[in-house]
């Protein structure tokens, strides 16, 4: 999933650098506040461990192929999300410089796609809720597999988004998404199973390593939401200014068939509903009504991303309510 420099425009690369740098500075501050001098060498060695572990191939049963570990969630489970994130940055930077795996300009995007989602989203939203009431083999397997799959899906989707916004590839957005997400579903599953196998081994051999981390880093939905909120504004607002004016995947497909980006309608029902939609839409065609300004496009981006974020929060809340109900019943 390492992105090359050529796949990003300078604007997108810069925005991703800013987002990753802000998260790194915040993580460094959290580690400094903890003031645990012993953690610094452990983080360094664990980064080197992930590097070495990535070199070992694990055979995937029934496929004849093999996979390897990425390490973000594993590091977060042992070191905590902030230390895990910084260790992953060190790994990605060394990979980029010494092995040309990912580019210097794309480093910000690579950190975001491969370290941020695993260390923060995977940890705070999946791993921590699963294990906050204690560890068991089942909980660790479920948390690792779901955490890794979702983190990798988000990472893969971000790769598509960043490349498409950069306007580098002619590959339609839909086709790109359809080719990236399924393959990363399989990769995420393997990564999750390897992570689970290692964590289960730790639980049996040295459970204090998992317990030590679990007592720190209390789950804070508020902090995750604040971070996600900043990202929503960054991605939706700033990046939409650089959005391509070319048709999206669906519009492109329609254009190839009809030589128009929208299908012509010939029914009364369609006309009536289109009228209702035009009257009620706050930002028709991603602009303020009667305006073509960049501000409109930007606001559309923020509003759109905000609605998606709200939808995600709503889903989290619904799951949370059900979980609490279940806990009360038991």
């Amino acid at each position, binding site marked *: 999933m390492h992105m*090359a*420099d*050529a*796949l*990003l425009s*300078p604007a997108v*690369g810069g925005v991703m650098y800013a987002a990753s740098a802000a998260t*790194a500075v915040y993580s*460094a*501050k959290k580690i400094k506040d903890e003031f645990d*001098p012993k953690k*610094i*060498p*452990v*983080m*360094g*060695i*664990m*980064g*080197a*461990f992930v*590097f*070495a*572990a990535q*070199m*070992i191939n*694990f*055979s*995937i049963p029934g496929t*004849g*192929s*093999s996979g390897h570990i990425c390490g973000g969630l594993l590091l977060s489970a042992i070191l905590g999300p902030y230390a895990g994130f*910084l*260790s992953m*940055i*060190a790994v990605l930077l*060394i990979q980029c*410089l*010494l*092995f*040309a*795996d990912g*580019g*210097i*300009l794309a480093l910000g995007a690579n950190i975001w796609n491969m370290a941020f989602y695993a260390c923060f989203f995977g940890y705070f939203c999946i791993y921590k809720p699963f294990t906050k009431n204690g560890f068991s083999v089942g909980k660790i397997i479920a948390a690792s597999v779901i955490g890794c799959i979702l983190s990798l899906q988000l990472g893969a989707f971000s790769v598509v988004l960043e490349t498409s916004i950069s306007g*580098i590839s*002619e*590959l*339609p957005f839909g086709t790109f998404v359809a080719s990236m997400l399924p393959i990363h579903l399989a990769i995420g599953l393997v990564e999750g*199973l*390897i992570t*689970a*196998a*290692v964590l289960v*081994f*730790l639980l049996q*051999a*040295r459970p204090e*390593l998992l317990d030590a981390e679990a007592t720190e880093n209390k789950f804070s939905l508020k902090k995750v939401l604040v971070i996600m909120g900043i990202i929503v504004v960054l991605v939706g607002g700033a990046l939409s200014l650089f959005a391509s004016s070319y048709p999206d995947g669906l519009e*492109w497909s329609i254009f190839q068939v009809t030589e128009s980006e929208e299908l012509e309608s010939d029914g009364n029902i369609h006309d009536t509903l289109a009228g209702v939609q035009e009257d009620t839409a706050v930002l028709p065609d991603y602009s303020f009504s009667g305006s073509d300004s960049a501000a409109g496009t930007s606001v559309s981006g923020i509003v759109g991303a905000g609605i998606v974020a709200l939808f995600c929060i709503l889903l989290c809340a619904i799951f949370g309510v059900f979980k609490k109900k279940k806990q009360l019943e038991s």
Partner: protein
Amino acid sequence: MGKISDAIYEIHYMDTIASKDSPIHRIHPLIKLLTAIAYIWFTVSFDKYNVAGLLTMVIYPVVVFSVSGTSFRHSVKKLRVILPIILLMGILNPFFEQTPRFTFYGIIVTNGMVSGFTLIVKGCFAVLGSYLLIATTTIESLCYALNLLHVPKILVTQILLTYRYITVLMSEANHIFEAYILRAPFQKGVHFKVWGSLLGQLLLRSIDRAGALYDSMVLRGYNGEFRYTQLRRLQWQDFAYLAAWAGAFAVLRYTDFLNMVGNLFV
């Protein structure tokens, strides 16, 4: 186990060539870092149909390769890592963008072909830019440059420690994996039944090693903060190097340099 030994060799090789002496090696690491970023930045910012302009950016790698005495052949190996992805993206472009751009000896060249080609060239130039940085600057010097850029000290320390211990842990991983493969000769990778114990053993050894490392650091006066000695001050030659390259990149990027040169002679 070729993969791990190759990687260890690669790290030692890069360490060796980065420690050589040449006019480029002697430039301040911060200046080399900024120049490399500027090169990559200007290169990827070229329009996807501006092939001629983009190709003029070859001047930076050509000059730095020859002045620093770095092997071009070895850098081609680095291209192998990233080239498959870029080639795939570039090759797909002609299928999705078939608007004709120009005709070349009767062959219709489409926008997709041109943008695919520039994508591949940009990818190669960007890899060469970062390769030349690390081939002429040691990781310690780069970390010193990051320190000057006010990158958090904890992060810089992480990079240094991780880099120092990569070869140690990779050798350990190599021993574990070789021992396993000798007992399971016809397997493609590690069997899923021992995924946890094999990697877990390496993890436990790493954590124990971290404990030993911490003790040795404390014995040498470590109290939670790393101190860096200043390598050397920035000199006017460093600023001249950066200004010259930044100026050259800007001229190549924002002017029709090839036509300007051509007009001088025609």
